[in-house]
């Protein structure tokens, strides 16, 4: 093998990669946040909702968790323009990722909902709390503690696996930037090696941040590594 690695060109374009990393981070945070809202709703419905709604949520979860994220995003990307909806690539990706994360987070959060003591909820009811208040003041604090590690793990999954799918529909996040830049001067190996390293650094920062957040805010000793 007489391949000569030339990283010089990668460093020249490093600012663009950094931009991509920043977009990756933003996409990850927004998709996770959106997914968390959807998941919270889904988990609440699955636990307290009437059966038609439960069935709906079940169908949503089964369907999403059993299909590739890429197919879901292609469905939005190639399918929506046909019905007259023209969204930007970023919007397609973000909505696809949110729907995807929502299904997985429904499962994770649902586990948390179940772990709450019934007696505590009953105590909440006797204090005259509404369902929303019960969720806000009794269920959520419990959940935060018991499933924080699972949530933190899933955030990394969204941040890495989720957002990188965007590269395939022309979103210039980290992987997308790498594809764009390397197709100019064919330094694929160099670009992707550097990008792999950047993902590792990005997720390490995220992991450490999440561990500290967990410790200070939720008092969880999350084992991230």
């Amino acid at each position, binding site marked *: 093998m007489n391949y000569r690695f030339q990283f010089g060109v990668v460093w020249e374009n490093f600012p663009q990669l950094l931009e991509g990393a920043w977009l990756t981070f933003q996409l990850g945070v927004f998709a996770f946040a959106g997914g968390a809202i959807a998941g919270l709703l889904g988990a609440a419905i699955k636990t307290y909702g009437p059966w038609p709604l439960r069935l709906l949520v079940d169908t949503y979860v089964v369907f999403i968790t059993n299909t590739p994220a*890429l197919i879901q995003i292609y469905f939005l990307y190639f399918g929506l323009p046909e019905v007259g909806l023209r969204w930007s690539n970023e919007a397609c990706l973000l909505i696809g990722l949110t729907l995807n994360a929502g299904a997985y987070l429904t499962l994770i959060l649902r586990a948390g909902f179940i772990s709450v*003591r019934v007696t505590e909820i009953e105590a909440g009811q006797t204090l005259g709390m509404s369902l929303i208040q019960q969720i806000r003041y009794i269920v959520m604090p419990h959940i935060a503690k018991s499933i924080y590690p699972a949530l933190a793990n899933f955030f990394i999954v969204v941040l890495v696996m989720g957002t990188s799918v965007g590269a395939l529909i022309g979103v210039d996040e980290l992987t997308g930037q790498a594809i764009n830049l390397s197709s100019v001067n064919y330094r694929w190996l160099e670009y992707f*090696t550097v990008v*792999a390293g950047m993902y590792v650094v990005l997720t390490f920062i995220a992991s450490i941040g999440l561990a500290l957040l967990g410790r200070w805010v939720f008092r969880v000793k999350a084992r991230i590594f």
Partner: protein
Amino acid sequence: MERILEQAPRFFSGPNLTLLFESAMLTLGMTLAGCLIGFGLAFVLVFLRQTPGLWALPLRLVCITYVEVFRRIPFIVVIYLVLFFIQTVTPDASLFTIAVIAICLYAVAYTADIIRGGLESVPATQVEAAQAMNLSRLQTNLRIVLPQAWPVIVPPAIAFAVSFIKDTALVSQVGVFELTFRGKELNNQGYSGILVFGTIAFATSFYLSRSVFWANTWRNALPHLAVSDVRAKYGSLEVLKGISFSIEKGEIVALVGPSGSGKSTVLRALMGLTPITGGDVDLAGERLNYSSSREVRAARDRMAIVFQQYNLFQNMTVMQNLTLAPLKIKRWDRAEVEAEARRLLGLVGLSDKIDAYSDQLSGGQQQRVALARALALKPQILLLDEVTSALDPELVGEVLDAIRKLAAEGMTMVIVSHEMGFVREVADKVVFMDAGQIIEAGTPAELFDTPKTDRAQNFFSNILRH
């Protein structure tokens, strides 16, 4: 919308579906090959990671770094790296090979963690015992640790492979003719994206989700167990040499006898844990057939067993332990299951421990939870395998009390126990076994007071003397 309706007949009738099916098979083959090779390599990685000694520190670091790094970079980046690396080394490598290598590298990182978790679940005392016999590290792993860790490793590893099938969609990007690539191609040919990707999504979701769906074969027949001439072997050693007995509904049969007489094996054989090599088991007038795993499951559906080691799920509360199988396996209604769980916990006197974790409970309490858990599945027969043997003498009483209450409720039970006083009190029938055979059977009074055979006489007089 009109476009979809107009295209649909052409799309579903033409060769498109065949093409999609073929590429789905390719996706499957690619994932399986990658995951299988990766699984094998992951074992090597885990083994290397466990190498003791200072000299192996760099080796261990490399292994740890590999797993950490690969879990933190997107699969698509791995695909690109593998693609361009392989193409620089051997330009004529096929895309399929490249996809398999990428899948394999990724699978190694994920399954290594699963394997490590499985190996760590085997108690350290087992390893120490093996080392005390001078087994080498490899031998210990192969003969002692792996066989025990296997059941812990395999299910999540399969779950990983199944869910990874979804992520392999990404290799479409480098031009492998798998499912997503075909879909994109068809879309380029002018077929509606909603139609194409909707079909793919629907098909994959249907097949992936269909994996666990069991018909509820629960029947409320009369429980009446007849065991006739049952034989079982461990290797070449015949441990059950033709066992026959029967139980009426609501009866309690106690199996007693010296250690190694095959008492526990009878229970294990009934549950299909030890293969039966001959004889018949009839439950409620139906022949139980242990020939296939499905039949074994059907048998287990109707019986429940509690072991000496209570085996509570450590990660779950008492309530979750009780409701897991009824909710997840039987898919019974939650409200009913929880109400029944509460009733059972009341029965065994643990209403106040509903949300405790097993490490917060004493051995006796854990065993009572295990009893309630077995009952939560509404078995027709309950098998108890030396349920008090692992307990402090102080705690034995509370478990026996719980069993007495079950007896009062009319539960049909087969009990293996060394608590002779208890056996005498609750059992309707006592079966005395030795060396894989039934020596004598009868009412407790008959066996304890006037045993007919010398062997039984010896056994009981020895026990009662203590």
